[in-house]
């Protein structure tokens, strides 16, 4: 790819520039008097109503993983990749139960991170550190994956990406990321919250046009499914088995449902998603959004189908094959081949901006964890709110640079593998956080040990799994056959069960020997509280409240 399409490129640049301006200007949006408090930089003043939260959480939950990796999976293996749709369907009924409680207790006590809650609930620095550490560890490769998404677009556009000539080819990605780091540093969570409006609008426009226009261009849905079926039935030379299947086969059903369930349990354990939740101004904002967010799941389902459209689009499979059979490029090539170049530019911008928004929130969330639960907790116990904010701002830069270096110097596939690992890790914080919202029965040290064992188990189990058809490789998958029941199960879920069993057994033991349980600063009513935002906060509550009364 030597030539660059000027029209696509111009549209991408214009939209990127627009987003950059908004990102820096966001610092003035709902400006606070005490802008140096971490509530402001890290949580946008905790003042977002239903509408903003819907865009913010939508922009947060649906990442480059959604736009690039999911259709790539469907492109490669078919039905099995659709577990992602099932997972984004079941996540909302699950979080409907506990997310409002988490929001309430965080609002009452001013918790900024999930580890803050753990600290307050269990009176345990160790458990809080474990949760903070897991959050940072899991979110780092997730940020790197956003970069991989951007890189896929740049590669297809012929401006950098899978470089053979090093630094210069990576320059566009580096510049994009430095700009992102800049406005995240300046504006904090307000930047991605504002940009999310543009992101989500672009995504909706892109997918609506794609599902109408592309089938017309390539010969209809019947043709798309039949081409996909042929491709999936063909034998993969590497494994000697079919590539996949159009309908999930009995052998894969356990993997399918456990991946879906495990990912659903994990999703709101990710610190960036909890950040989006904590930024809401009222309890009902969370509850309403749980009912309204599935609109994005529909988008995810349609985006997954882009994988099949790419298989059926003339020239796209050949292009993908010519680029190391990198299925991540399927959707960008699909846009390039099928859309007129101006709309391809919009589609590319949707993916790039779609990666920037979650990357910013992830960096903020990881930085908050660092500032609150490591820096303040272990190094500067007397750090003022302003000092914590400074620490968090700089940490966000470090986190982003780390992700950038990871993508530049480590093989791209590792970013995806580590992201899979991240899911296995983060779901291990589920018992401490979610059980903690209901009961103090679990002993803090039982939870720590359960967590630690499950982390080690998950990492080793994933390490032992070679990629399909590549014996000797590691971290190639995230499902494994469970000996006793002889089904293929998501490792994250197996780890979660181990985690829970250990936590229960050791709690019984520790309670029997009367090991001190730690002080609990929360009270039952805190979990259902819905405090009015303080008068000092720049929060326009009226609109949201009036709307709620109408709905209720």
């Amino acid at each position: 790819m030597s030539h660059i399409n000027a029209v696509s490129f111009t549209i991408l640049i214009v939209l990127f520039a627009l987003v950059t301006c908004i990102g820096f200007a966001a610092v003035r949006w709902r400006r606070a008097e005490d802008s140096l408090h971490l509530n402001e930089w890290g949580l946008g003043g905790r003042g977002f109503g239903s509408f903003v939260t819907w865009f913010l959480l939508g922009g947060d939950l649906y990442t480059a993983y959604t736009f690039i990796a999911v259709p790539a999976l469907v492109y490669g293996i078919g039905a099995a990749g659709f577990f992602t749709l099932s997972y984004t369907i079941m996540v909302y009924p699950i979080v409907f139960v506990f997310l409002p409680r988490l929001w309430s207790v965080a609002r009452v006590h001013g918790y900024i991170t999930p580890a803050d809650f753990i600290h307050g609930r269990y009176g345990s620095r160790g458990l809080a550190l474990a949760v903070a550490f897991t959050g940072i560890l899991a979110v780092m490769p997730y940020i790197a994956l956003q970069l991989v998404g951007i890189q896929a677009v740049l590669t297809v556009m012929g401006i950098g990406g899978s470089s053979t000539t090093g630094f210069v080819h990576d320059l566009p990605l580096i510049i994009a990321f430095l700009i992102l780091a800049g406005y995240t540093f300046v504006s904090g969570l307000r930047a991605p919250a504002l940009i999310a409006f543009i992101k989500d609008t672009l995504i909706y426009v892109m997918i609506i046009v794609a599902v109408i226009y592309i089938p017309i261009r390539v010969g209809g849905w019947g043709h798309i499914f039949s081409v996909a079926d042929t491709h999936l039935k063909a034998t993969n030379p590497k494994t000697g088995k079919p590539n996949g299947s159009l309908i999930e086969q009995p052998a894969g059903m356990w993997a399918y449902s456990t991946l879906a369930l495990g990912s659903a349990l994990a999703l709101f354990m990710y610190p960036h998603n909890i950040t989006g939740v904590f930024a809401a101004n009222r309890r009902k904002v969370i509850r309403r959004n749980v009912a309204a967010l599935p609109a994005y799941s529909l988008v995810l389902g349609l985006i997954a189908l882009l994988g099949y459209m790419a298989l059926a689009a003339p020239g796209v499979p050949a292009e993908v094959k010519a680029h190391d059979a990198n299925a991540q490029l399927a959707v960008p090539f699909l846009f390039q081949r099928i859309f007129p170049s101006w709309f391809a530019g919009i589609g590319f911008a949707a993916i790039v901006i779609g990666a920037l928004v979650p990357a910013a929130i992830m960096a903020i969330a990881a930085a908050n964890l660092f500032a609150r639960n490591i820096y303040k907790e272990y190094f500067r116990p007397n750090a003022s709110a302003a000092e914590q904010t400074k620490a968090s701002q700089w940490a966000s830069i470090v986190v982003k640079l780390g992700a950038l270096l990871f993508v530049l110097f480590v093989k791209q596939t590792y970013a995806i593998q580590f992201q899979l690992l991240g899911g296995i890790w983060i779901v291990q914080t589920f018992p401490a956080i979610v059980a903690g919202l209901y009961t103090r029965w679990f002993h803090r040290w039982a939870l720590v040990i359960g967590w630690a064992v499950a982390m080690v188990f998950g990492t080793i189990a994933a390490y032992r799994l070679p990629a399909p058809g590549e014996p000797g490789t590691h971290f190639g998958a995230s499902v494994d056959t469970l000996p006793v029941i002889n089904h293929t199960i998501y490792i994250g879920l197996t780890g979660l069960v181990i985690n829970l069993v250990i936590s229960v057994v050791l709690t019984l033991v520790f309670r029997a020997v009367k090991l001190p349980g730690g002080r609990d600063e929360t009270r039952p009513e805190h979990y259902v509280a819905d405090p009015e935002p303080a008068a000092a906060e720049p929060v326009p509550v009226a609109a949201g409240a009036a709307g709620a009364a109408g709905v209720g």
Partner: protein
Amino acid sequence: MTHSGPPRTRTGTWLLVAILLLVAVLGTLIVPIYARSSPYLGSFPFFYWYQLLWVPVTALLTTICYLITTKVARPAPDSQGGRAEPGAPVPAQPPTGHGEAL
């Protein structure tokens, strides 16, 4: 559950909510329900249109849960009164805990 109110109605409501949410989760958790190609909807195999259809179904179920939990938890005078069930007395709520008791 810091609220007053008739315990039987309250328990019944939470049970209903739990069942609705469980249905929403099980709809796609049990893969054998939908891992088949027929019946087709247009050119879409059942496997695909069923899951896509389940998105609005889940949204509807969680919306219903939102509405009934809001109604149960907020028969308070400020929520445009009159929506509470006839038998439900106005509860004396603690000042900080007037949210839903989920």
